[in-house]
């Protein structure tokens, strides 16, 4: 597929849109439908499309597997870390209300961070799985 001009042009136009949409789903998740899981999957689909059209090797240069592994762990750590942070002002685990001055602001901030963690992990795990399967049989 490396010489297919139409696919190249169309996907190059689409990928930024997909990424923007993923970010919208990610950060608008607490007001409308969406959240980290969906956003992570959409974001990873942008890279998967890139890999399908431009080849696996180029895609792995864009998103190196070592970075992906770090990101996968980082997401979980953000999630669990937010919970730990809420312990220190005297809240229970994942009690976002204590994160900011007002309860509502705290809840917003907490869910935003936690969903960010979810998004990062889902994004990187989806890609790790994709690369693992797509890379089978390569030398």
């Amino acid at each position, binding site marked *: 597929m490396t010489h297919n001009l139409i696919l190249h042009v169309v996907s190059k136009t689409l990928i930024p849109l997909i990424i923007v949409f993923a970010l919208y789903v990610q950060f608008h998740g607490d007001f409308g439908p969406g959240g980290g899981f969906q956003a992570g999957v959409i974001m990873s689909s942008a890279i998967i499309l890139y890999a399908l059209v431009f080849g696996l090797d180029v895609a792995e240069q864009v998103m190196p597997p070592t970075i992906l*592994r*770090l990101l*996968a*762990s*980082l997401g*979980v*750590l953000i999630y*669990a*870390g937010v*919970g*730990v942070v809420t*312990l220190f002002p005297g*809240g*229970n*685990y*994942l*009690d*976002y*209300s204590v994160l900011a001055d007002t309860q509502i602001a705290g809840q917003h901030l907490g869910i935003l961070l936690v969903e960010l963690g979810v998004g990062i992990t889902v994004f990187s795990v989806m890609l790790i799985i994709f690369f693992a399967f797509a890379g089978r049989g390569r030398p």
Partner: protein
Amino acid sequence: MPDHLSLLLVVIPLIAAPVAAILPRGRLPWATALTVTSICFILAGMQLWAVVHDGVISYELGGWAPPWGIEYRIDAVNAFVALIVSGIAAITVPYALLSAEKEIPEHQIPHFYSAFLLCFTGLLGITQTGDIFNLFVFLEISSLSSYALISLGQKRQALTSAYQYLIMGTLGATFFLIGVGLIYSQTGTLNMMDLAERLPEVSGLNTVHTGFAFIMIGFALKLALFPLHLWLPNAYTYAPTVITVFLAATATKVALYVMLRVLFTVFPNGFISTIPTGDLFILSGMAGIIIASVYAIYQVDVKRLLAYSSVAQIGYMALGIGFASAMGVTATIIHLFNHALMKGALFMAVGAIIYRIGDCRMDNIQGLGRQMPWTFGAIVTGGLSLIGVPGTAGFISKWYLVLAALEQDAWILVAVILIGSLLAVIYMGRVIEALYFKPAAETNLAVKEAPILLLAPTWVLVFANIYFGLDTELTVGVAEHAAQVLGVAAK
């Protein structure tokens, strides 16, 4: 932060798991696992102490009050199981250093410890949570990581046995979830204590009965209750030895805890006798003790022999549940603890042989007992405990089980328990015969005793077997207290 004790028990390994995954190869991931499991063991000990002395701990996650939010609710039962899980983990990890280096490819080591910690998180989570849906989530965490861990075994069969376990385990988890869904549809709640309050009103409904059946079958699969045990022998045989030790001593115990919890806390008292659940437990327990023990006699692989023996031992625990009496449940909880000790010790000792010769088939281990006296001693003592010889932990559990059977005038069951012990004499006898009385194969003459790092954890468990066979204050005391907490009526 004593308030957060029960939470930290789950969160510390949860945070350590991704950290272990990104650490460089070498011994750092192992050191992380060692630190975390030791901390958790201490925390679990503190938790049990707090629960026994100050009563139930309730922790509201996210500050949302139960029954709306998720609640961790710890009483003597789950505190005890959490102590078993973290104790076994804290002993397994030192053992894992050499054993895992030998059996697992170097580039997988960080992932191995990461998955191990995740499995540990899941098992502890199951014991800590007071929310039945949250329990399902933790069940999946522990199951998914254990499939991955089993597939890391050296032989190619490890992959198929992990896959087999994946299918059976997923079926079990799905059944559990269907059951929870059905009950939720009738009560509108997922909090266990809230369920306990609401279920009596609707306990006559068929939906609730069906939900109950789904939950029981689901966990019988995870528990490997005979005849739903088919995944277990393969999984235990082909998994890396460390994982066999860990899963044999903890995973089935946690599944059994969930059974106890659902039967005696969540469902109204006496529900177990409205449909003949107790009889089913007794029937499958009896069949499991006899049939699995006979299977064990014919095995040529020692690990597989011990795996079948585990199925038989689960049968004993099922008997205790089936009696639905305070004495029966006490016996089950005691055996839950003691079986973790004996199977832990035995699998570790077998692992030491595998470390030396890479195999544990009956004809390959011949005569090794004389060259590896400490390993052999561990197998003999563990075997005696498994048989139930006085002075070992196994005797205490058999004793209470027989008492519980006598209480109900169930002479047949007393006979079954004794026959089970005799069968254990035969299958452990075969191992000991091969190890000690057969002439050593020429290829094995140079084999030396296992390194101290493998022997020390093994012997800690062996001594625990003897200690808890003589001093029963902790086990019996806590088990009786736990049976009381579960509210099982004395008969």
